[in-house]
């Protein structure tokens, strides 16, 4: 007998679509109605059966795995806790507590995606709105260095380009969509205007937009764009009713990084003297925004936090995971709900391979290859409930659609904490 669960939240990406109908039979998901291909993969491929934890590749009892993990962490002089973007905020809270007790460094996957967004935000602030306001009001949408058609597949229909709201009853026809990118993407193909800029020129283009808004004139091409095109974009931005610029890693992880983001945030703020305008990051993993939130309320800082001195210290470039690993400044790692081996630069990955590592995750991934202790935990949003923060920082409940047999990240972290204390 199968059962259907309505209003299930998909935590694959930062869209956190909470309208999925999940059909379950014998602890196996048969269907996930309304989920995009990305989300569908997550629901259908997850195997919720209980798996033994592994220590050095050998199946062991949970107690033994917990004490092995605690042992690694207590022996370390400078442990790193990394990941957190696909776990629940309840587990993230425990992870920060563990970092505090251990004197560890804690960092989330933001470190390699939107950490420059944090740095830009700290420089100039940022004006944003919830995705419901985008749906209801936005008549100008700019997608800058991001490709929602492939990465956030329901963004257009649920929240932005095609959504219908009270000031946008005709959906797509009530909006103008502009894409700025270095190459034609699937998203660019749907745009009313596609501005293809030369790689690495985001900062210059953004600065030119700001200059034009401030009344300066520009008569030369910038970033490969003729000045007329830039002027036209400025005109569109100044005269729209409610404009939103979404940006992705095309802006945050290219030359300029945090300065690019500060520039787009400053541009947004300045446009509010003419109309309403916002700049917002397209957050990737389902609860990466939550990791920022939780680490911030518990320590005062959003990522790259070291508790080594007994109190929280914030160190971009100093306590960011890739830097800590590449400089060999950590001697043990606890990886939670993420896969650094798949994403980190070689130098950082090589050190991760060298040091004792614990992986706490619902699925096998590249990092499983190097972890000395593997704790196969439940998957929040499938067999464990919890809380996650959408890309616009709206908190949404993750439901569970089956009785769990695996322990959750939160439970594991509490057990490790107990074991560390002893």
């Amino acid at each position, binding site marked *: 007998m199968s059962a259907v669960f309505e*209003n299930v939240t998909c935590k694959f990406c930062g869209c956190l679509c909470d309208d999925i109908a999940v059909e379950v039979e014998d602890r196996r998901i048969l269907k996930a109605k309304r989920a995009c291909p990305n989300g569908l993969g997550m629901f259908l491929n997850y195997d919720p059966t209980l798996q033994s934890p592994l220590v050095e590749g050998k199946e062991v009892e949970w107690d033994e795995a917990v004490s092995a993990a605690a042992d690694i962490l207590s022996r370390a002089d400078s442990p790193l806790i990394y990941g957190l973007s696909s776990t629940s905020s309840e587990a993230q809270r425990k992870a920060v507590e563990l970092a505090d007790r251990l004197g560890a460094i804690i960092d989330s996957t933001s470190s390699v995606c939107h950490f420059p967004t944090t740095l830009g935000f700290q420089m100039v602030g940022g004006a944003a709105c*919830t995705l419901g306001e985008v749906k209801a009001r936005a008549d100008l949408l700019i997608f800058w260095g991001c490709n929602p058609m492939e990465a956030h597949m329901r963004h257009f229909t649920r929240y932005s380009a095609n959504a219908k709201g009270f000031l946008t009853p005709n959906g797509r026809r009530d909006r103008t969509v502009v894409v700025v990118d270095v190459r034609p993407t699937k998203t660019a193909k749907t745009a009313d205007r596609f501005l293809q800029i030369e790689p690495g020129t985001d900062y210059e283009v953004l600065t030119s937009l700001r200059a034009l808004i401030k009344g300066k004139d520009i008569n030369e091409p910038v970033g490969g764009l003729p000045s007329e095109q830039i002027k036209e974009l400025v005109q569109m931005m100044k005269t729209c009713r409610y404009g939103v610029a979404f940006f992705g890693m095309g802006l945050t992880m290219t030359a300029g990084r945090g300065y690019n983001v500060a520039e787009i945030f400053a541009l947004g703020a300045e446009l509010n003297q003419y109309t309403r305008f916002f700049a917002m990051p397209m957050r990737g993993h389902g609860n990466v925004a939550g990791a920022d939130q939780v680490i911030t309320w*518990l320590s005062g800082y959003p990522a790259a936090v070291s508790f080594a001195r007994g109190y929280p210290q914030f160190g971009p470039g100093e306590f960011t995971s890739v830097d800590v690993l590449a400089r060999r400044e950590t001697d043990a790692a606890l990886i939670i709900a993420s896969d650094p081996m798949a994403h980190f630069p070689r130098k950082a990955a090589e050190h991760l391979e060298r040091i004792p590592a614990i992986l706490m995750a619902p699925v096998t991934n590249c990092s499983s290859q190097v972890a000395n202790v593997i704790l196969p935990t439940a998957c929040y949003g499938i067999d464990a409930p919890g809380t996650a923060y959408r890309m616009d920082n709206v908190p949404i409940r993750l439901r569970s659609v089956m009785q769990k047999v695996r322990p959750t990240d939160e439970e594991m972290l509490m057990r490790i904490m107990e074991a560390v204390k002893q």
Partner: protein
Amino acid sequence: MIGIIGGRVFDPMNGINGTIQDIWIKGGKIVSQEEVDPQKARRIDASGQVVMPGGVDLHSHISGAKANAGRKLCPEDSRRLIRARTGFFRSGSGYTVPSTHLTGYLYAEMGYTTVMEAASAPLVARHTHEELQDIPIIDKGVLITMGNNHFIMKCIQNGEMEKARDYVAWLLEASKGFGIKIVNPGGVENWKYGKNVQNLEDEVIGFGVTPRRILSALARIREELKLPHPPHIHGLSLGRSGNADITVETIKSMEGIDAHFCHIQFMSYGGKPGEFPKSAAVKVAQAVTENPHITVDVGQVLFGPATTMTSDAPFEFSLSRKIGAKWVNNDLESESGGGVVPLTYKRNDPVHSTMWSIGLELFLLIEDPWRVYLTTDHPNAGPFSGYPEVIRMLMDRDFRAQEFEKIHKKAMKNSILPELNREYTLNEIAIITRAGPAKRLGLKNKGHLGVGADADITVYANLENKAEMFAHPAWVIKDGEVVVRDGKLIREQLGRTLYVSPSYEKAIEKDIRAHFDNSYTVSFENYPIAPEHIGPSEKLTCD
């Protein structure tokens, strides 16, 4: 069992003004002496000391989307105050916006045991509750912003007041809120079109209602639902020169219905818009005195760093443009908005000095201490850790005069502060910092030391320097356990989240569901917060 023996007790709710009395505690409650075995009770010698109920703060931004944006925005603020972990206690950071555990520790170490989070939009209340669970020791609650809510404005427009009432009840239950917060009614909705409201008759775009109608509807709904706390109002034109007139008009517009006006220091400016603000404290204090159903808290400015954060999003935008500071804004679908701007109050700034003076004038001019409460609108006018300094200025005329000498000359010239000779008594301080706010919040077990009250008690050494005295209590007891000794935390425990759940006609859910389908990006089913997701809690009855 604990006995607090021989202290001078200030329990204004029960008419006890400095008499020497013993207080007995059992099972987290205050009990009569007969109920304890004096041989078995732990005895705390309070002779020569001052005993008061635990402090109650009815307006402080300690948690949720705005507070956390403030933390994230300002690593410089987190570096101003750090605390290392010691033994069982967590580390933390943040001077104007402390991290969550540090917030609980600092409040407790100052003798405060109950704090009301001043504002959360219901859509992000789940976030607020997550943070509140990480604020230990103190009890807390959340005021829910409703002054720009589409569903409510639509009901008012259509004259459907019962529907609006049922919705408010549903919303408080769904968000696990404590009361109704109104921030710049209609102005935040208009800000979504780049506009604002200037007076009570201005129209809210798309809804055909006015700030006046929103205020009066929500005030009446509160009465009908018998909520413990009246509507908590942040009015129009906050921070603008000349706003005292609209403040007085808004107070009068309540027409005898209960209301609380928060941080009125920010709402008591004379002069013309855009020009230098003058004090209109006399005018506002008079309006408060003449309208006995109105209470206020002050929002006293403290010189030094602050972080402004409010649902009054258009205010934050204009502030940031004026002072050139970094600006955070968030518009929230169908409900509200908000903003954050860091700011440092300086003595050598004539406007800041004037604001400082206006706050003190209001404290001293409003004669009935039961109707004015101590706040700094934390962290808008300064951090709550500055309360002891404010207490000293209220209790010690000479100290106040000394501080006055340091402010900007231009502010001095316009101030009536030197003419105000009043000095608050310990009993009056007990009223404005615990008995008064507890009574106004409708918390029957807080803010007093009568039998049956929660055993939340603070014992102070009776020092000449009142700032010193109130900054470092000798003992703080929460729920019958000693949590602070000589100003230092010695025990961590969880506090409770206080919320209300008034009854309503369930048929309303059909309309609300339709509203969700049209206007929200979160489904109706996933919006309400279950009681088990807010940690230890206490549901207050509405009667």
